[in-house]
């Protein structure tokens, strides 16, 4: 093989590998600037001018309008407390505490971040509308079939995600400082 052909081959291989890794990394979510709190993940710098290039690239590709640091923080869970993917055939209990915030909302989304069609047309709960225990704690049941109490339906089979948004939270600028005990746990109660 001539040196020229070798150089072309090396460049083509490198280009393909570089583009493939970029795509794979962005599909998996930004690798830097992501804070993990138990099953929850937050791109802590997403809503600021000093977001790292990976976080920015993920936002620009997805079309998401991020929350500003002063507005709040969005956390997403794709797994339960034990690290197993969230599946529509299982029942999950989410609770009993949420981090300090004026309001929070919890909603079910598909893997791309969009609400999932369901007969009840209920896509999420606000902190101001749920039933609570006497001590202020709460339990939200996430499942495909109806459940007593705060029931959040999962309309489609397969994996899904939970989005927790904290509005006007003192923690939004310092997501790394959120204690795991302050976030809702996601306990799998059973599977069909």
């Amino acid at each position, binding site marked *: 093989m001539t040196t020229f052909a070798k150089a072309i081959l090396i460049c083509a291989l*490198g*280009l393909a590998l*570089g583009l493939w890794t970029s795509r794979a990394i962005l599909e998996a979510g930004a690798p830097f600037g992501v804070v993990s709190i138990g099953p929850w993940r937050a791109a802590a710098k997403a*809503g600021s001018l000093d977001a790292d290039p990976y976080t920015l690239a993920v936002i620009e590709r997805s079309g*998401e309008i991020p929350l*500003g640091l002063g507005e709040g923080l969005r956390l997403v869970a794709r797994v339960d407390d034990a690290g197993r993917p969230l599946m529509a055939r299982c029942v999950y209990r989410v609770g009993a505490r949420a981090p300090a915030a004026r*309001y929070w909302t919890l909603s079910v989304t598909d893997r791309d*971040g969009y609400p999932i069609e369901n007969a009840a047309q209920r896509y999420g709960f*606000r902190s101001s509308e749920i039933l609570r225990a006497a001590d202020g704690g709460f339990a939200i049941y996430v499942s495909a079939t109806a459940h007593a109490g705060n029931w959040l339906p999962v309309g489609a089979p397969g994996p899904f995600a939970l989005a927790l948004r904290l509005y006007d939270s003192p923690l939004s600028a310092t997501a790394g400082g959120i204690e795991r005990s302050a976030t809702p746990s996601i306990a799998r109660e059973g599977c069909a």
Partner: protein
Amino acid sequence: MSAGERLGAAATAVAAVAIVAALTHFLAILLIPEVATRDAFARLSELGPVGQTIALARPSPSERRFPYADPALASAFCRFDLSGGPVRVKAAVGRAGFASLSFHARRGAVFYALTDRAATHGVMEAVVVTPSQLRALAAHDDEDNPSQDLRVVSASVEGFALLRALSELPSLYPEAEAQAKTLSCAPEPMPK
């Protein structure tokens, strides 16, 4: 060629591929925000002209435009273009449980955000300027009678302002929608 030489040539080729791949990867990550054609700004641009207040459809399974949009929030936006001068952005504080006004640069970053807690006389208001417009405005400021305006320097000439209003209960969503529509973006005359 001896076995050792062959091994050396192979190692050089692998290293060259890795270097090209790494360069491609970093270039791709840095360029994605510049070339993304389906980012939030592009998606908003499809909905209407610069300067007009446009309400976003309530997030639902059939409304797949902005991922991770909160179904509990009503929002409206207006795009601004500072090439013709500063833009005054205003929004009324209504009965929504939480409202916030955020300012987004052309490429994903949020450069400023304020919540209804920061409102004065029931209005959230800011004048969006470029760095040179800020200098021009400051040069005209009356020292004895300083401007009461909150001036926010935009990270880019084009961008958009977004008003989010939270409905405390599902039945209050129409009120949140009405509040979101109070957003206005008007050209601000420069002092002569």
